[in-house]
């Protein structure tokens, strides 16, 4: 994806938005997480090999904000796992304006996970491939593909990446 210079103010806003979305999860404010997405959005965590092979099944897939809310409720009330925190480290995004005005963004990331009482360990690395649109005064993700470098994850994935 080749970068086209964007108005610096817009770029700053997008960078803040992408950072806020990651921090909401890092800070355990899971209920906020679906609000970074449009109502009809698509979210998928998928290994790079599957993404490049065109597979339709990833590790986690949400079609619509409702499925994201269900994920959040499930991780808070149904699923059982050892408590853990995330710490996302985001690279500077590469941005491109699409013909319809949406912004395509690619942001590399490293994700550290700390299981309570354990070490901080690198849990995942990869890239966000995002499509960002305006929704009223807000920016929102219309789609986010979380492409993991490895097809192997340690133990389980329950918190969104």
């Amino acid at each position, binding site marked *: 994806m080749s970068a086209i210079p964007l108005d610096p103010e817009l770029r700053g806003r997008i960078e803040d938005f992408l950072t806020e979305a990651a921090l909401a999860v890092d800070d355990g404010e899971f209920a906020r997480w679906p609000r970074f997405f449009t109502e009809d959005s698509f979210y998928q*965590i*998928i*290994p790079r*090999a*599957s993404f490049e*092979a065109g*597979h*339709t*099944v*990833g*590790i*986690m*897939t*949400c*079609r*619509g*904000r*409702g*499925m*994201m*809310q*269900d*994920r959040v*409720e*499930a991780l808070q*009330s*149904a*699923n*059982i*796992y*050892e408590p853990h925190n995330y710490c996302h480290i985001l690279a500077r995004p590469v941005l491109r304006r699409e013909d319809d005005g949406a912004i395509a963004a690619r942001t590399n990331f490293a994700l550290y996970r700390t299981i309570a009482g354990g070490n901080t360990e690198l849990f995942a690395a990869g890239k966000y491939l995002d499509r960002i649109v305006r929704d009223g005064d807000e920016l929102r993700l219309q789609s986010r593909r979380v492409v993991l470098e490895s*097809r*192997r*994850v*340690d*133990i*389980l*994935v*329950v918190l969104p990446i």
Partner: protein
Amino acid sequence: MSATLVSNEALRWPAEGVTRVPYRVFADPEIYAQEQQRIFRGPVWNFLCLETEIPQPGDIRLAAIGETPIIVTRDETGAVNAMVNRCAHRGALVCLKERDHAAALTCAYHSWSYDLRGQLQSVAFRRGLRGQGGMPADFDPARHRLEPVRVESFCGLVFGTFSPDTPPVETYLGPMTAGLVRRALGRPYRLIGMHSQMLHNNWKLYAENLRDSYHASLLHTFYTAFKINRVDMDGGMLLSDDGRHSVSYSKRATLQEGEELERMRAAQYGSDLNGPQLLETFDEWPDGITHAIQAIFPTLGVQFTLNSIAVRFFTPRGLDETELFWMYLGREDDDPHQAGMRALQGNLTGAAGLVSLEDGCINEFVQRGTRGSPDHAAIVEMGGREVGSSQSSRATETGIRGFWQAYRQLMEL
């Protein structure tokens, strides 16, 4: 093979038999080493890969049998071959890419080259350089090859065995298991997703977990937490005649006809879900079975969860490390709507599965819980003390008892 028996000092199996599992079996390096010989190189069929992953001559896929690295190829005749990924020369891995395509298999270390069946074809500098050196004159490449593995395919699943005594796959599976595999995989399918997860536990804890229909609704509470009103709770646990394979299944309530059945189906997954499309399904299984998890000894699972069809298998990566693989399948003739439903239902299982993710940690909890207690034993008495099918209830550990019965026979424990 001249492996010695696990000594009685190492393991004294409790007198109660398969209703007790001494925790030493999950933590003893001597037992683990014996399993590599007696189980994985013994008279069992090990799942290697899907035929659909190697459709063309020259296609290569890496796999494993126990800890032994395996190469699976499709040769020029279209036949599937398997061999140990260990150069006949000095033991290096010959193939490095999980998926590849090549006309020959060439070791990077000294360029020894094998055909797609594993037969040694050429040795670099065999005649030396400028008349100097080279291999001894009587060195005969025809007498060297990659260690062969017997292969057989069933419904597109490629199995391998080291033992000449393993019966044909269909005999090994038995009629019940073979019939259910054919039901799920008997039509053309393709790979539509794959990932794996590392479990920090001995492989046999996952083998138990896969056969444990007792824990399903207790540990995995997603369905109940979201008040997913399942009318398909009829079900049971069926075992193969030898007890080593099992299937846990649930089906729609029976004896419903016509309008009433349609009404039941419409209400089937009424729930508190904000995204109910998660459970949108299409009719695929005329016998009314909606969920089935088959465990095939030693390390394969074949399952369908609504319309999500998956093959899961696990590979020991050390005494207390196991890699669990998930391969999701779709039909060749799926329309986009059906493909979309399979993709969303994939959320139910896998490393982030809404009704399976707990299995990623629960077996580790056993591994950690039993540390320092090798002479204590698990109690496996739910549903009785026998090894046999449970037609009426899935609250049973009979599948686990069946696993240990087969394990003890092979290990002579």
